[in-house]
């Protein structure tokens, strides 16, 4: 789960990572009030779940409360387009108003899960404020990594090493060691999947602090953190994806015209790939779960049909423990309950009781294209969708 910068900074404060004074505002007036309280120059930052906000016009410097109000008025309500939002952009509902910091140096500090070693890795770079993937690709020598032994946790010498590698000294070194140590505590304490400070800055007065904050939290660890549910911002999520989640389905909207419903994530991806090989584009990823209950199938079908781009539906179910005749029954009921379905539906059932499932579809009186064979079904669906 992604959370907003202002929420991540509240976590930073709680764990003792220094951040600028500030507050979050939903209206220009609130932004003005926060700027008055801070005094002096402030930064007004759009709060959306995407990076690259500055380039898109979502971050503005203001010389006082009046300018902060004007900046907030321009930003709140705008559709902010960045390289991470897609062409439609994301609507801004809140801004973070913060004390502007005098920057001497910009650095990068992050903690992520390293899949290859199955350990947490601290990543630091003297090239802060930039796209870290670009830095890694172009100047890998400017990136330093240190892995945390799960049995030991982060050792103090590792935090010191990171800060020496970043070239910190004096107060900035002390602040840096605290920030690395506390970022690790936060990661473990909150079950994060990513914790990133970009940039971590050295101020002209010598101290260091986080002026951006990005934290992703682990949905699977929700049982340890009931309070995390309140951090979720549903306006940031695709409504159909949110609805699917409620029914235990995995749905991701894509751009094509063949809607697909498949049981199992791997088979669902493979089905999308095959549709593409057959000359069409998948409209979505939809995994109804390995089990594929009749109720799951019905909800999945409704979500699929809510996408206006869908010109054909392909249902690909590999029956295992769940029997294909039960799935077929679910499909028939879903179509009947939905009333008018004006796109062709191709169904391929394989595995346990597949033949019986096919008989149910054919005997339903509804206009299914019951196809035998994985490739044949995908080809039929692609043809019926008329290519893209």
């Amino acid at each position, binding site marked *: 789960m992604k959370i907003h910068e202002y929420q991540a900074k509240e976590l930073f404060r709680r764990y003792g990572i220094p951040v600028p004074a500030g507050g979050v505002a939903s209206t220009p007036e609130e932004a003005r009030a926060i700027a008055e309280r801070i005094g002096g120059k402030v930064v007004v930052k759009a709060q959306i779940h995407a990076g690259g906000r500055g380039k898109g016009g979502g971050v503005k410097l203001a010389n006082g409360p009046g300018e902060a109000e004007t900046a907030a008025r321009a930003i709140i309500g705008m559709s902010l387009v960045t390289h*991470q939002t897609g062409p439609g952009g994301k609507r801004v509902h809140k801004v973070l108003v913060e004390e502007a910091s005098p920057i001497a140096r910009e650095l990068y500090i992050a903690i992520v*899960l390293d*899949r*290859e070693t*199955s*350990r*947490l890795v601290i990543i630091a770079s003297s090239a802060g404020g930039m796209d870290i*993937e670009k830095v890694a690709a172009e100047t890998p020598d400017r990136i330093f990594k240190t892995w945390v*032994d*799960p*049995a030991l946790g982060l050792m103090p010498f590792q935090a010191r090493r990171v800060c020496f590698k970043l070239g910190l000294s004096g107060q900035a070194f002390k602040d840096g060691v605290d920030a690395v140590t506390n970022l690790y505590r936060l990661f*473990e304490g909150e*079950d994060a*999947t990513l914790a990133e400070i970009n940039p971590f800055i050295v101020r002209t007065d010598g101290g260091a602090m986080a002026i951006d904050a990005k934290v992703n939290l*682990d949905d*699977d*660890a929700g*049982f*340890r953190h009931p309070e995390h549910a309140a951090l979720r911002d549903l306006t940031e999520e695709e409504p159909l994806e949110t609805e699917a989640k409620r029914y235990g389905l*995995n749905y*991701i909207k*894509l751009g094509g015209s063949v809607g697909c419903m*498949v*049981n*199992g*994530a*791997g*088979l*669902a*991806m*493979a*089905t*999308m*790939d*095959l*549709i*593409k*090989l057959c000359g069409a*584009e*998948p409209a979505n*990823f939809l*995994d109804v779960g*390995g089990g594929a209950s009749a109720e799951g199938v019905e909800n999945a079908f409704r979500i699929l049909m809510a996408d206006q781009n869908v010109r054909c539906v392909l249902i690909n179910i*590999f*029956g*295992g*423990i769940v029997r294909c005749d039960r799935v077929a029954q679910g499909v028939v009921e879903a179509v009947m309950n939905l009333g008018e379905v004006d796109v062709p539906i191709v169904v391929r059932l*394989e*595995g*346990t009781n597949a033949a019986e499932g096919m008989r149910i579809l054919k005997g339903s009186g509804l206009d299914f294209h019951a196809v035998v*064979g*994985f*490739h044949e079904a*995908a080809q039929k669906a692609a043809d019926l969708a008329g290519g893209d």
Partner: protein
Amino acid sequence: MAVLLTEDTRAIVQGLGKEGQFHTERMLQYGTRIVGGVRPGKAGEEVLGLPSFDTVEDARDGTGANASIIFVPSRFAADAVIEAVDAELDLVVLITEGIPPLDMIRVKDRLKRSSTRMIGPNCPGIITPGVGKLGIMPTEIFEAGRCGVISRSGTLTYEVAAQLTAAGIGQSTCMGIGGDPIIGTKHRDALELFNADPDTEIIALIGEIGGNDEELAAAYIADHCDKPVVAFIAGSTAPPGKRMGHAGAIIAGGKGTAAEKKAALRAAGVTVCDSPAAIGTTTKRTLTG
């Protein structure tokens, strides 16, 4: 002798709730040697005709078990695995889905300091056709033979097994290694086992987007594998930055794409299928030359 799951495997079940019992019944029906269950506080009781024990250690001592299959809910899964490792079982199959990565980091670390082999989590398990299954897969689609199957997915594994069986190619062992970012047995580890198995003649490797396990597998194949490998990578059409159902199936920072994985495997001499519908026929063609 197949891989990991053989005639010598005697397994206990950790987590005999509704789902655990359902699948235990089917494992027994298939002829798998399930010898007991761990149900803390219910030692001495019977379930499905199997004796219950308070701890894994008791179950091991009471039955001679050398393996365990785990169905416990995600929040208890790390504890269950580490208990099995502590009892020095040879094989642990972890079916449970949705275990927090921070828990899995500790599990993986404990596994590294042991001789226990773990398969999973978030996996369908392992089947040696004709011998037994520690998993949740349907059995009719499998047939004993000489093709080893390794896959990060569940139903896609069934699809592949059905294609192989339809093409007249039986399987030595099929292993669903799981769709999470941290798993006990990776593609490379499984390849090593199949490469050393005299009953395996050819290997089908089913990967997907996310991480670099397939690239590491490719490097192993290039240097060490002397059996033909046929591969499919799911997710060529997956968008970047989105988790495709499996926790591990995500293209992050432009890394972990299907194109990269296919290229690495092809460079290692692997026959890569672009179509998931052609895995059975391609394996047959590769085998018969």
